[in-house]
């Protein structure tokens, strides 16, 4: 046994701590966003080292990929508020955090010292936890024979603790409804002003990547029954393909306003509930699958989950509220009202173009 794996763990751990520190310490929102993506990728390596390949898949797809795209999306929406403003005081107001108090190095050190003590205490408690013989894995192993699938994680998610997963899809649907109801203004996919023409090469890339991502998603749903994979990872991957399609302009950005997308979004919830009710009549217990039918039912639910998760995640990406041009309190370049192209601040002062007055 060489020391190399420990060095690898050490570098991953230092990278995680360093990235977390820096991304919460910086004032530049874009830097924080990119560092967050890097954090997700590093965390994925940590899952690999901890023997959790399923989590590594989910983290790479969800933690780094889709969350990263969500933050970039929100960043752009927020930053457009500062667009076109030239004065020192107000440009970049919202994407650069100007509410960080300047403190002396000694005070900062003291602050981190206190937090470090708390973290150290937590770590000490965790490290000195009494070692116990595994109980849950033994139970899972014993029950795996009747589970219908041989991947223990899928068995836990969709058989032993299927309630959790049912409620999880409820949370996803709730988030979709929440984001959707926030968007009071335009339902239109806000176009980036820099996006002047279409990008033929992006279309070519989408034609290559999207089918491959779709194929991999199907593959992951299928292998989830007996090996690494599953509906969540597959759904996230399919959502990535959907985001690419929307960004490349191939898919009209259907939002939750469209009945079809709403139906697909709640598909898994409906299928899961129906399966639960059927098994209630069959076996007398909600979500206790009839013996012999476990594999088929789990595969059915997994397929529906993949579709719904993909659709909901794409909607969460598309549906982040656009900032309407006429929103009260919004400082925008007035395209039509002012021939001088002046910028108006909410208190009525002209921010730019006031010299010509």
């Amino acid at each position, binding site marked *: 046994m060489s020391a190399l794996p420990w060095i690898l763990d050490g570098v991953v751990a230092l990278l995680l701590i360093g990235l977390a520190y820096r991304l919460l310490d910086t004032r530049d929102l874009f830097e924080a966003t990119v560092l967050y993506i890097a954090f997700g990728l590093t965390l994925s390596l940590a899952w690999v080292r901890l023997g959790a390949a399923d989590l590594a898949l989910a983290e790479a797809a969800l933690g780094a990929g889709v969350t990263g795209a969500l933050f970039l999306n*929100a960043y752009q929406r927020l930053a457009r508020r500062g667009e076109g403003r030239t004065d020192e005081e107000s440009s970049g107001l919202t994407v650069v955090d100007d509410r960080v108090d300047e403190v002396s190095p000694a005070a900062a050190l003291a602050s981190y010292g206190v937090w470090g003590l708390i973290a150290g205490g937590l770590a000490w408690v965790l490290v000195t936890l009494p070692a116990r013989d595994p109980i849950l894995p033994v139970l899972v192993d014993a029950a795996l024979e009747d589970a219908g699938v041989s991947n223990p994680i899928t068995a836990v998610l969709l058989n032993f603790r299927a309630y959790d997963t049912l409620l999880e899809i409820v949370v996803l649907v709730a988030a979709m409804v929440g984001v959707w109801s926030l968007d009071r203004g335009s339902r239109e996919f806000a176009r980036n002003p820099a996006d002047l023409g279409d990008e033929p090469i992006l279309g070519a890339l989408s034609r290559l990547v999207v089918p491959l991502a779709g194929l991999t998603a199907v593959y992951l749903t299928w292998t989830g029954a007996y090996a690494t994979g599953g509906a969540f990872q597959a759904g996230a991957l399919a959502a990535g393909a959907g985001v690419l399609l929307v960004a490349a302009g191939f898919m009209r950005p259907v939002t939750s306003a469209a009945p079809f997308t709403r139906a697909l979004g709640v598909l898994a919830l409906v299928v899961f509930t129906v399966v639960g009710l059927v098994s209630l009549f069959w076996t007398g217990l909600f979500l206790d699958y009839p013996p012999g039918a476990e594999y088929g039912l789990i595969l059915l639910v997994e397929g529906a989950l993949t579709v719904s998760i993909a659709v909901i995640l794409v909607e969460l990406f598309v549906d982040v509220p656009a900032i309407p041009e006429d929103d009260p309190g919004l400082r925008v370049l007035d395209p039509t009202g002012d021939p001088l192209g002046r910028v108006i601040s909410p208190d009525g002062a002209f921010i730019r173009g006031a010299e010509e007055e």
Partner: protein
Amino acid sequence: MSTDLIYLVTGAGVSMLGFRGFVTRAHLFWKILGINLMGSGIFLILIAAPPRLPGGEADPVPQAMVLTGIVVALSATALALGVALRVAVRTGRPYLEEEAGDPVDHPTAASEIRREME
């Protein structure tokens, strides 16, 4: 064995850094980032605390829990980002009102002036 210990300590550190960021930063986006990091740290602890199985894999039950947690965290993040954006639009600043310290912009001034000019 020591791999678990390294990631236990890392999880404690990351979750506390995230908590610190959540408490000390006024900007809503950093608060969301802080909560996310806090969650990631706790996920690390959940996976690193139980012993590995003989084959080297992590315990399947916490793995399933964390898998659920990652998805729930993502949907909560999306909703929180949406709310933060709405706050930024309504108040003109991405901070919570009572924290911003300065008076909130009058929400109708700009539209009123534009209407006058048209």
